[in-house]
């Protein structure tokens, strides 16, 4: 039998592996390094990462080393997997809903820096985690299809079932969880009834934001669950005001993205310097048009005009991380039951 061939193929494969290894390890070198775990889109070439790295490195005589994972949830999972042995000095990109779980890992310590400059709706304050940007969840709609968007969550829930919306799954995505909490905030214990009604308007439930937004921009549904800041991207980068967010009279649920300092950080002073830098203009300037979120403190330049046209929620909903952690499983079960009923 051609056993020799097998071994030839094996060695070819081994070569490929070797090439790949050599190829991926060509990096790393500098005396003082700050390792920051974040989500991948933060460090994409169009994200804030490259600019932030450049700006901070000018002030610190150090190297900023970003490690990107899929998203905020994966960030927390990675920390749990690595535990005490994590290389991370800072973690940037958790949201408030994950804060409680993150603290439970016991891997973080108080940041201990002055955060008076930080202004976020709902006044989130935490000794461990510092907000660096935020956005309100919102129903974004296609003005070419929908002339009269819902003006409240109630109108969304009770409106014409033939006008569909794409939402994300709270089991697998943060916007999905956001909507779950939003409905809960507005409807309280009546949330399951609201979901039972809303179900008829839901075209489909996607595993993540990307899939939902993709379906929306392909025209499958005139509405999608996204952020109040989404239209800014289309206005600034694509010069179109076709996609707009609907202002809901009850108010909007907020997503606040935060950063925290790890107990085992190598150089805590450097890490704290970064956190201070993070809430200053050098960092905040990059947020609006790179992360397409709202800055948490003053930027050196006024925000682009498009941001002036965005929906500013009259009221902000935000549940405490502890409340979310306590009820998430039960609320998801409720959601499942309501959404799966025939």
């Amino acid at each position, binding site marked *: 039998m051609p*056993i020799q061939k097998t071994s030839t193929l094996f060695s070819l494969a081994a070569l*490929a*592996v070797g090439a790949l290894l050599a190829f*991926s390890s060509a990096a790393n070198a500098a005396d003082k390094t700050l390792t920051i775990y974040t989500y991948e889109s933060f460090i994409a070439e169009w994200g804030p990462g490259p600019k932030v790295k450049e700006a901070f490195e000018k002030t610190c005589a150090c190297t900023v080393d970003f490690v990107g994972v*899929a998203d905020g949830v994966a960030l927390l999972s*990675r920390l*749990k997997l690595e535990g005490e*042995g994590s290389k991370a000095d800072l973690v940037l990109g958790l949201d408030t809903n994950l804060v409680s779980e993150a603290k439970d890992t016991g891997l973080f310590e108080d940041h201990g820096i002055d955060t008076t400059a930080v202004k976020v709706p709902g006044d989130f304050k935490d000794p461990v985690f510092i907000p660096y940007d935020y956005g309100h969840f919102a129903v974004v709609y296609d003005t070419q299809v929908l002339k009269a968007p819902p003006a409240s969550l109630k109108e969304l829930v009770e409106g014409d079932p033939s006008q569909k919306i794409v939402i994300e799954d709270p089991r697998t995505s943060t916007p999905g969880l956001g909507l779950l909490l939003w409905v809960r905030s507005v409807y309280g214990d009546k949330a399951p009834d609201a979901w039972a009604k809303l179900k008829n308007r839901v075209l489909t439930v996607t595993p993540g934001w990307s899939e939902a*937004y993709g379906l929306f*921009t392909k025209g499958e549904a005139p509405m999608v669950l996204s952020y109040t800041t989404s239209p800014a991207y289309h206005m600034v980068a694509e010069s179109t005001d076709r996609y707009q967010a609907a202002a809901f009279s009850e108010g909007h649920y907020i997503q606040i993205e935060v950063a925290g300092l790890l107990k085992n950080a190598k150089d805590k002073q450097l890490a704290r310097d970064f956190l201070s830098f993070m809430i200053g203009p050098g960092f905040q300037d990059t947020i609006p048009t790179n992360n397409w979120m709202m800055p948490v403190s003053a930027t050196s330049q006024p925000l682009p005009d498009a941001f002036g046209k965005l929906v500013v929620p009259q009221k902000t909903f935000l549940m405490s991380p502890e409340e979310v952690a306590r009820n998430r499983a039960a609320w998801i079960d409720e959601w499942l039951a309501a959404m799966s009923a025939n």
Partner: protein
Amino acid sequence: MTPAERRRALAGGVFSLAGILLFVGLAVFALLTFAGASSSSMSALADPYTLRILRFTLLQALLSTLLSVALAMPVALALARQRRFFGRIWIIRLMAVPMGLPVLIGALGLLAIWGRRGIVNDTLAWLGLQEPIHIYGLAGILLAHVFFNLPLACRLMLIGLERIPAEYWLVSGNLGMPGLSVFRFIEWPALRRLVPGIAGLIFMLCATSFTLVLILGGGPAATTLEVAIYQSLRFDFAPQRAVSLALMQIVVTAGILGFLTLFPAPEDRGIAAGKPVRRLDGRKIAARLWDVTVLSLAVLFLGLPLAAVALAGARADLPKLLGETIFWRAALTSLSIALGAGLLSVSLAMAITQAREAIAAKRNPARIARLFSATLGGTSSLVLLVPPVVLATGWFLLLLPGGDTSMLAPVLVLGINTLMSLPFVIRIVAPAMAAHRIRTARLSASLGLAGWTRLRLIDWPGLKKPLLMALSFAMALSLGDLGAVALFGADGLTTLPWLLYSRLGSYRTTDADGLALLLGLICLGLTIAGTAGLKIPEERDER
């Protein structure tokens, strides 16, 4: 086989099996023993939720499999019957493209045709019909699964049909067997040998489907076990529960697949002697009309969504994308992983096949040998049921003490892709090697051919075609894979699907469309290489 060859073949089998089991087992072990996990929801394997999604998982997989196999059959028969027409090779190549596309892209392509704003509904609306087709729900899931799996089934069936000895067609022509007789006495017996294997493969693919089920399922009523596994590892971070669910997935599916093996497949003993095949039955008008209809429908069904993907991609700024270094880096990474995984997968498939042949060749294999052979066979197909996210997480844990996980991420993706493509590769490699052995083994042995000479003169020419095809299959599969390991961070490991998703994840839909087109073109390129040897022998026989 000489005793030495048999020993080597068996050693190769043991080595391969050990490799696979270790790769899976260590990951599972790491997850099960992970201390930092919340062991809260461990209890709930038999809760109503799990049972409900288990039922749905199996139901949709069963229906998807039935539809994919049943619809692939006429297409494969038509392709086998019409051996020379303009574009035939391109239809075959087209069939490799859905496999290589990230499922989200395929879904968007399908929706451009069947969605609420798709051309089918637009046409219906234009005709004055009010109620548009609403595919979200089971219908959408089935549609998508057929779209992705019909081509796979079709190509595997075609391989089998093309192994039918050329004389059969002369005899059937001479006897004047009508189409139904040809199907009953020639085509169906050939297909019947293949269908259980193909159906099993598709069943596993559909049972572990995740993104498609969620996107097209219309709501959480459509949820598969894979979703629950993903959820337990991500949001809930309960590795033990994830492993239990994964085990449940493997056990239940394996049970159903075991049921499939109860249909004994008669052995394929006819050997195509390499004579040119003449399908006179395909020249009749009725047969031509039928085949043209079937193939047109198949091409439309598969081609339109792909065309929609291509069209959307053509609107992107392709020169800009091609000018980006990150694109080339991602393409190189993807291709290296795909090539590495493809070669490994083909090697594993060959080693496993040789070991199983070595055992089958013994007149009275010991029970342990038979058991080993069955384990090899089962393992090499059931690996498809191990959720990549479980492997990725487990290995991440294992490799942590070694420090730099970023170094090992490519190796992990490679390993996972190797395993995931193994079941496909083995379906191509095993029958080809069996036929090759029957054709050449005795002669080679009698001439004392061995080693490099035999490899160069006998084995490579004889096996080149199926091996290249298997390699291109495996590579296409790896190319479309997002790389579950990247979930937890694979710094610098940017594959094409990963790049595509990251563009999509930051509003850059047009870029993503363009990348989808480029990815599709790469897959097409691969399958052109994989089908390169396909049309040589029957160049001149039919007009």
